[in-house]
């Protein structure tokens, strides 16, 4: 027992004093911000200049051109009124809002010109416009068929160089739609000034209701961000500390320290000493982050609100959430750490270890990706089965618990399956560890490893 404590202590103290730990403790939250917010910001960037569009309006009397042009240019005026959406808004909005604001600013400015058809045929006009696109004088053009107002089957066509820019395309489609709708309504006798009032969009406010039937505060979408952040946090810490375990195992094998350790105490004690030591290191880091987060929530945010900043509504996390987080984090950590011990015992160098550990990383990444469909339907049967698979449960079950807490028996079952898996994996890892650590020179083959498991 004293020896186990000595091993845990060494592992913990040595690791906590490393630069890696200090840097990760500081950079971790930054990385979290970078991975969750930056993609949204990148989306809202439109590189390059204005989008130059020509409109071929074949409707009788050219009724639509002005409407579409106004729509496209009005957009710019709207934007000027709104200014650029701030980061806080972006992070705080619902996904839909975020996509929309991103889409709006993304379209950038339009330059619109009318094409006078004169007596030329459509094919002639198109040939000329295509040539202009080819010379990069134009980004695209819109062809409005003559019967667009009367025939609902009628199709407008857009020809452009970059049709992959779905946001610009979406904006054009959107504006075209509203212009056509507007003209159709006017044609049916609605007054011009009434059209805007009638087309006013509806605001949808979202309120969560829990299993007791109680309503919560309006959810601005921060709940979604929180679920994602937690899923990502579990993913990144398990990955990170799994790698730390792998490194520690390989170090002792490479430096041949294992032989001295094994002559002093049972290999299983050494293995557990290392796993527990690294887990304490991980928990220390999580605790520092937790305290920092709580401090920001309790002191910095109210201070910012007092300074006139918009109050960012942090989602409320009930205490049982932290218990589950702790349990599922440890479950995931020991599961993947056991696999990393197994990998570390089989290889001879850190490089080999990295290669052999790739499938493990994929397994973990798969868990993170599965979190997305689970967030959308936390109580679907898909979510249920995915949260029962032990390798995904630490992420997927946690996502379910935060977004829509499943019945207790499901959480308990998921934990139970996880614990059984961890016990089996630890047993397997310890069998391979005690022999693999003394095998130098070459990477072990699968048959060899199977023999080690059976060997007494």
């Amino acid at each position: 027992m004293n020896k186990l404590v000595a091993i845990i202590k060494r592992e913990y103290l040595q690791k906590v004093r490393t630069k890696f730990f200090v840097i990760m403790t500081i950079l971790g939250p930054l990385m979290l911000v970078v991975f969750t917010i930056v993609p949204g910001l990148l989306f809202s960037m439109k590189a390059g200049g204005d989008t130059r569009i020509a409109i071929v309006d074949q409707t009788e009397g050219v009724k639509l051109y002005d409407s579409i042009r106004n729509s496209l240019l009005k957009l710019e005026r709207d934007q000027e009124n709104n200014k650029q959406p701030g980061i806080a808004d972006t992070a705080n909005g619902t996904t839909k809002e975020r996509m929309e604001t991103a889409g709006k600013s993304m379209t950038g400015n339009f330059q619109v010109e009318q094409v006078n058809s004169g007596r030329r045929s459509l094919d002639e006009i198109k040939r000329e416009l295509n040539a202009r696109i080819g010379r990069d004088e134009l980004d695209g053009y819109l062809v409005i068929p003559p019967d667009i107002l009367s025939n609902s089957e009628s199709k407008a066509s857009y020809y452009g160089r970059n049709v992959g820019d779905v946001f610009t395309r979406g904006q054009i489609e959107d504006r075209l739609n509203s212009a056509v709708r507007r003209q159709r309504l006017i044609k049916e006798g609605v007054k011009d000034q009434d059209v805007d009032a009638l087309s006013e969009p509806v605001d949808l406010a979202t309120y969560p209701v829990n299993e007791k039937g109680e309503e919560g505060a309006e959810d601005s979408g921060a709940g979604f961000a929180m679920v994602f952040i937690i899923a990502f946090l579990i993913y990144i810490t398990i990955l990170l500390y799994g790698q730390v375990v792998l490194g520690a195992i390989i170090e002792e094998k490479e430096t041949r320290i294992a032989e001295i350790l094994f002559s002093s105490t049972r290999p299983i004690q050494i293995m557990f000493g290392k796993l527990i030591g690294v887990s304490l290191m991980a928990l220390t880091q999580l605790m520092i982050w937790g305290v920092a987060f709580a401090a920001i929530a309790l002191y910095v945010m109210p201070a910012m609100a007092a300074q006139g900043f918009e109050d960012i509504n942090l989602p409320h996390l009930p205490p049982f959430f932290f218990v589950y987080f702790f349990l599922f984090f440890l479950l995931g950590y020991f599961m993947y750490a056991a696999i990393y011990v197994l990998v570390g015992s089989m290889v001879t160098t850190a490089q080999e270890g990295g290669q052999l550990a790739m499938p493990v990383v994929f397994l973990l990444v798969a868990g993170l990706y599965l979190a997305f469909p689970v967030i959308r339907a936390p109580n679907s049967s898909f979510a249920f089965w995915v949260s029962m698979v032990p390798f995904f449960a630490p992420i997927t079950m946690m996502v379910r618990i935060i977004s829509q807490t499943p019945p207790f028996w499901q959480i308990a079952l998921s934990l139970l399956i996880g614990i059984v898996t961890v016990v089996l994996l630890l047993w397997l890892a310890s069998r391979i560890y005690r022999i693999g650590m003394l095998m130098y020179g070459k990477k072990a083959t699968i048959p060899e490893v199977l023999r080690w498991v059976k060997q007494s």
Partner: protein
Amino acid sequence: MTNDSATVVLDHITKSFGEFTAVSDLSLAVRAGRIYGLLGPNGAGKTTTIRMIVNITAPDSGWITVFGQQITPELQDRIGYLPEERGLYKKMKVGEQLKFFAALKNVTGKEADQRVDRWLTRLKLMEWKSKKSSELSKGMQQKVQFITAIIHEPELLILDEPFSGLDPVNVEVLKEIILELKAAGKTIIFSTHQMEVAEKICDDICLINRSRKVLEGSIREVKRSFSRNAVALRLVGGESVLEDRAFISNVQRHSDGVEVLLAEGATPQTLLKELLAADATIERFEMIEPSLHDIFIEKVTENV
């Protein structure tokens, strides 16, 4: 050899790894308070044998007793082991490192601190105590590793090639400590393939080759049993005697003398008498014992 006073007894030990038999039907006894040389070429099975004694691996069959008991993890605290393949934590300070290894042998607290300081001073490493071991030279690292093997004052010390890669000065320092430990009544198993070193240090030896024991006994006994009745001579005259096949079966001429092998029935005394009778001037007349090196080569090659 009485097993009662033996610190380590191996009784028909066999250990295989898949198809490969590393140790086959090996029996030996290491007597308390003596230095026991475990000799053999590379790959003979020395390291595997040692790993079984220190309870790192278990034999497939046979029995091992250490201090009269079957080996348990508790007994490991009474054994010190310096493996041939050895290392230190690169980024850990020397002092902390030694304390950690002491704790693994259940030596903790002030006691551990004192011992660390004592040994670092003795091996002239005190100024390196708070340096990371990666900053140490190879020889210094080896001395630190040696301390890890003895810091818990083990009753049984197992050294696997302790001198490999050390300069002569440090070899002498370690040798002195090993002999001190022997004088203090510790039992030492010394594994090597360097016969010159074994010859100077060991009381008893066991030669293993290709997983089997080929020879065991005290150095005296072994040498005596291999004595080939050879005499080294440096003479002026007396050539006729050397040609006489009644006395001498073989003559080897070196730059500063000859080495002769006596014929069956002839004794050194009769040779001496004959030489005197032949009026030869005798500058050197010495019975030669085979060196451990010769015995090793002879035994290892004859088995092939």
